């Protein structure tokens, strides 16, 4: 493994009505080639903001992003461009992330021509290869529009598109959470195979610990709560022997412990909070119980 991208004590704060909200709090993370890091947390934990910082869509308030050995703030125009292409994002909603006016082939050919400067015949051939790589027969799919595809097919196209510019780092933000369980597996499998073949570094963001443990098998999982990484360990260790109380709570919920087992655990206290749309119901404060 060689280091491709590193977050060095990164913090991101937002201003919200004269109040400062810390979305990401002192997070350090290293992404190396052929390495998968799964980032697990609930909504509002800051995991998507970490994804946006890694892809360069958001700059951190404090701390450094180091890409290919160079601090992001010291990257020149060419360096920034390289980073933009080198780190690609696959988003949650395949219905929103593809241009509805372009056929599948057009969507793939555009970046190949613009960024790789391929002539149009070569770009079309490469686009078809990529479609075949994600398991879509070019003859059937190249001329289709997004609305003619199922959710799983669209997400495969989105994966193919992210690979057109030959990235070295891939950020997948809830990439399968909108797909049916039966389709999820094949998309995840395809994605993992492609990442291995291309020796990519992957940041796999999900709220679902079970999916993370499957996709991040033999790699690692980082658990986020309130903007911090509370535990980051090899996948099998984290699942079989969680150290942090929050990880344990997430695992218990994922296993549906406490339902039907005649659990006497008290229901968590529900808090009312003021008009604050960016936050959901806070998780019961587990630290105190420790």
């Amino acid at each position, binding site marked *: 493994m060689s280091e491709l991208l590193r977050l060095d004590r990164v913090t991101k704060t937002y201003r919200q009505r004269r109040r400062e909200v810390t979305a990401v709090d002192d997070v350090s993370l290293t992404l190396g080639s052929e390495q998968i890091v799964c980032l697990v947390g609930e909504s509002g934990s800051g995991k998507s903001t970490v994804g946006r910082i890694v892809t360069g869509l958001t700059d951190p308030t404090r701390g450094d992003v180091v890409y290919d050995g160079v601090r992001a703030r010291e990257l020149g125009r060419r360096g920034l461009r390289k980073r933009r292409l080198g780190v690609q994002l696959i988003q949650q909603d395949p219905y929103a992330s593809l241009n509805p006016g372009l056929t599948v082939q057009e969507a793939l050919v555009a970046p190949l021509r613009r960024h790789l400067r391929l002539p149009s015949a070569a770009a079309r051939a490469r686009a078809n290869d990529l479609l075949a790589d994600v398991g879509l027969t070019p003859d059937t799919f190249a001329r289709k529009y997004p609305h003619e595809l199922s959710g799983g097919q669209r997400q495969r196209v989105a994966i193919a598109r992210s690979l057109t510019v030959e990235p070295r780092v891939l950020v997948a933000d809830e990439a399968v959470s909108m797909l049916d*369980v039966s389709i999820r*597996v094949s998309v*995840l499998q395809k994605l993992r195979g492609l990442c291995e073949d291309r020796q990519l570094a992957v940041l796999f963001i999900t709220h679902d610990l079970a999916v993370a*443990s*499957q996709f991040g098998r033999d790699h690692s999982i980082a658990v986020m709560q309130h903007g911090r990484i509370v535990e980051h360990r090899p996948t099998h260790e984290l699942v079989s022997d969680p150290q942090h109380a929050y990880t344990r709570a997430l695992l218990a*919920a994922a296993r549906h412990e406490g339902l039907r087992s005649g659990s006497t655990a008290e229901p*968590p206290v*529900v808090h*009312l909070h003021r*008009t604050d749309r960016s936050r959901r119901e806070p998780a019961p404060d587990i630290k105190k119980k420790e």
Partner: protein
Amino acid sequence: MSPDDLVLDVRDLTVEYRGERTVRAVTELSVAIRRGETVALIGESGSGKTTAALAILGMLPDSAHVLGGGATVLTGTGPIDLIGLAPRELRVLRWRHIAYVPQGSINALNPVQRISRHFQQTAHAHGLAADEAQARAFELLEAVHLDAPRIWGSYPHELSGGTRQRVAIALAMLLRPAVIVLDEPTTALDVLTQEAVLRTLLDLQAQTGVSYLMITHDLAMAGAMADRIVTMVAGRAVEYGDSASVLADPRHSYTRGLLAAMPSLDGDDAMPPTSAVPSVAAITEAGMAGPLVDIATGRAAEPPLTGRIVREEAPA
């Protein structure tokens, strides 16, 4: 099964959407629910589970047509067939005997009305006196683990997603219906909140004996919540059985595949083969018209049931 215990009896329900193309969304679906019981309808998007629920509630859109079958709610005063009732009659019956917590109900509360108003309006529409309504609402809000006096005067936007979901559940319970249809009751909620809402539902059931028809794509959740599971593929029920045995020993290839596709935290966490879940097209082509067969006897069987029934598949 004692027929006296039945609260909802759906028989051979068939629903079709007519538009540019005619689509058969539900074909000969039969489900029976007893008092205090939870039955889960599982299936993926497009399997017809929400259409079935809407048909039972008499809430189908105009493009949908019930071609056959019925859905009966068994009340203290006699059975009521919900299908084919005029909208006005339905409105009277709906919240009183069978209530609905729709998918995404955390966004279904009226943003310009306080929570109190939601309860008052529902009570008024069904002739429940205001003071009685408030007493009941407070009781229910406490039952779903909310601080009733504080919630009462709040607007929906002041509440978190999990709290709004609990309000929607309390609202569904206001007229003490026998059955609540829960459509994906925890999607859009955080993992820990999901678990708390599910536990709330179980507590409420233990206290009141209400029955749930739960619609979900989450087999693990169905296993934790439901007494019985019905697997739907392309509008048809392909497997019926009590949850424990369906999960331990799924008999239809689709249920088996779904179970294999579920990421597990504990077993061997290798990814299952891509072909784990047979495609819906493959199943329909293989002939889903086979009879429902009792697993114990191997003979053709009729739901509703207590045993295990699976739709026979044509040999591959």
